[in-house]
């Protein structure tokens, strides 16, 4: 089984968010970056599990600059066999999808997996774009993935229940909670990751179709108002007049 897993780098969940350049650029100073959890915990680990039971190869793909090698090394330490880094700034989703599609075409992958979203931009858009560019079926938000021969069975969590569906390879799927258990890389894996191939390739030269104008932080949280339990009227008034919730 030849599996491509797309991985991205995101700020650690405890990051204090700020912006520069007139609020048009995320301020990376002092920010700790991690491998996007949905890519790592679910897509990558499931790919490695499938490789462990059926053989084949897991390739991780990242669009980013050289300082992304830490997260790529982590993916290799967890068990990916090799890595490709497209040496470019991941300007926007379409730009990244084009780069991924280009690399996917160059290999012959039976599955292309990625996380359901990145925890920074939460776009949830890449999987669909990649599938479209490659003219492949796309299964989003999969919480379970089993493989038999050239058929995969996936479970999607839908409102109030589950949907189980089958698809013939190749296909693209986005992974979410449930697909696998997070793995902690061990020291041996970390050592071995040093000698696994990491191929740095130039990007396809296209202009990103969108441009970020500005970011905005949500308004500061106001003071909490405490209301005595017996003062129901005041609570109702505040919910109606101030919070406009009722």
């Amino acid at each position, binding site marked *: 089984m030849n599996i491509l897993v797309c991985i991205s780098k995101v*700020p650690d*969940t*405890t*990051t204090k*968010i700020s912006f520069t350049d007139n609020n048009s650029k*995320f301020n990376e100073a002092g920010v700790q970056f991690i491998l996007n*959890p949905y890519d790592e*915990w679910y897509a990558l680990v499931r790919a490695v599990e499938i490789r462990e039971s059926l053989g084949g190869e897991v390739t991780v793909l990242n669009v980013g600059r050289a300082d992304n*090698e*830490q997260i790529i*090394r*982590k993916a290799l*330490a967890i068990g990916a066999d090799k890595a490709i880094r497209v040496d470019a700034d991941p300007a926007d989703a379409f730009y990244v999808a084009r780069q991924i599609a280009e690399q996917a075409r160059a290999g012959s992958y039976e599955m292309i997996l990625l996380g359901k979203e990145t*925890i*920074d*931009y*939460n776009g949830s858009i890449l999987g669909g774009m990649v599938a479209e560019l490659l003219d492949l079926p796309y299964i989003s938000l999969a919480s379970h993935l089993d493989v038999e021969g050239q058929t995969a069975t996936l479970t999607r969590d839908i409102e109030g229940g589950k949907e189980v569906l089958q698809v013939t390879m190749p296909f693209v799927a986005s992974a979410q*909670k449930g697909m696998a*258990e*997070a793995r*902690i*890389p*061990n*020291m*041996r894996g*970390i*050592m071995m*990751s*040093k000698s696994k191939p990491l191929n740095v390739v130039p990007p396809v030269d296209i202009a990103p179709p969108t441009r970020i104008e500005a*970011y*905005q*932080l*949500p308004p500061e949280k106001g003071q909490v108002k405490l209301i005595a339990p017996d003062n129901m009227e005041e609570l109702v008034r505040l919910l109606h007049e101030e919070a406009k919730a009722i």
Partner: protein
Amino acid sequence: MLSKNSLPLHPQSTLQAGHKAAKSDLFQGVDYYQIDELLSTEHKLVRDATRDFVKREVSPIIEDYAQRAAFPRQLIKGLGEIGAFGPQIPSEYGGGGLDQIAYGLIMQELERGDSGIRSTASVQGSLVMYPIYAFGSEAQKHRFLPKLATGEWMGCFGLTEPDHGSNPAGMTTHFTDAGDHVLLNGAKMWISNAPFADIAVVWAKNPEGKIQGVIVERGMEGFQTPETHGKWSLRASATGELVFDNVRVPKENILPGVTGLRGPLSCLSSARYGIAWGAIGAAMDCYDTALRYAQERQQFGRPIAGFQLQQKKLAEFVTEITKAQLLAWRLGVLKNEDRATPAQISMAKRNNVDMALHIARESRQILGGMGITGEYPIMRHMMNLESVITYEGTHDIHLLITGMDITGLNAFQ
């Protein structure tokens, strides 16, 4: 769009709940001087993996085990799997083949969880695997090291005796020649891991009166390992005695590569080096806990972190931790180049453990009454560090080592 709302800023968010990690362990590393930039990608991966392991496996259970004075044996398998046993031993013998800084960072993160867990790993890697690797025969290395690396076999290190602690040269445990085997007699005390260890690396006097290492295996007749009870420190680590009553040890279990005090002392150099890093972990956990608490706890209408007296403590903690990090890092560089002297290691062990114990005591006060409970890790770290400042050479003995190194005069005798 990237916004404060879109990032799960709190570890208890749904995202993290999907991960088995960190229910309430909010720990974040301390890096006031961008010391991370001195570390390689590999170092950071090793550190973060160990931190994840501790958050997932150690933090949720450790307080309970410490309160009950029980060793969490179920952690051994996981410690072996991530590679916490003998990470600095070459991979051909089952070790991790990592450098000294990576080893130090593993000890730091384990001790951030609990000094007892770090002790178990220190003993296994530096005091059991290291002497077999450095002084053992090829057959001994192949027989013991791979199983010790996975944790399938656990080891302990017997140097201290009831009447010989700071002065191990005076030891009375000894063995006599009896043909194809030797007969071992004597007793060791305060031995970490002894109650459950499968093997013991025991330092005893050979028939010529020189100190030599022997590997004693559980089940050998006349060998017992009674547990030491009633400890207020390292409660989640098992400590015991080793009692040898005419134990028949085959000659192939004698470590051929070294005689004299140099043998055990070189093991101690390796373990003490790890403790210099480990203590930083305990200190960081206390600082991290106290800082968080001080920012949240309100008295007199404001967070106690706003009061000068509390700020003095917190500011001094982060200063001392930063100094200790630089000391440990530089020592690691020297150790990687095989240039770290035992006296340099003594300085780092003494300074960093003292620093950690001081921070534990002071940060406990920041938490007021809460500080004495098991709700927070500080009091456990504080009690643990009382052992750490005593074993592997006491605080005083390390000072005398520095004193002797700079004056050339021996103040021990």
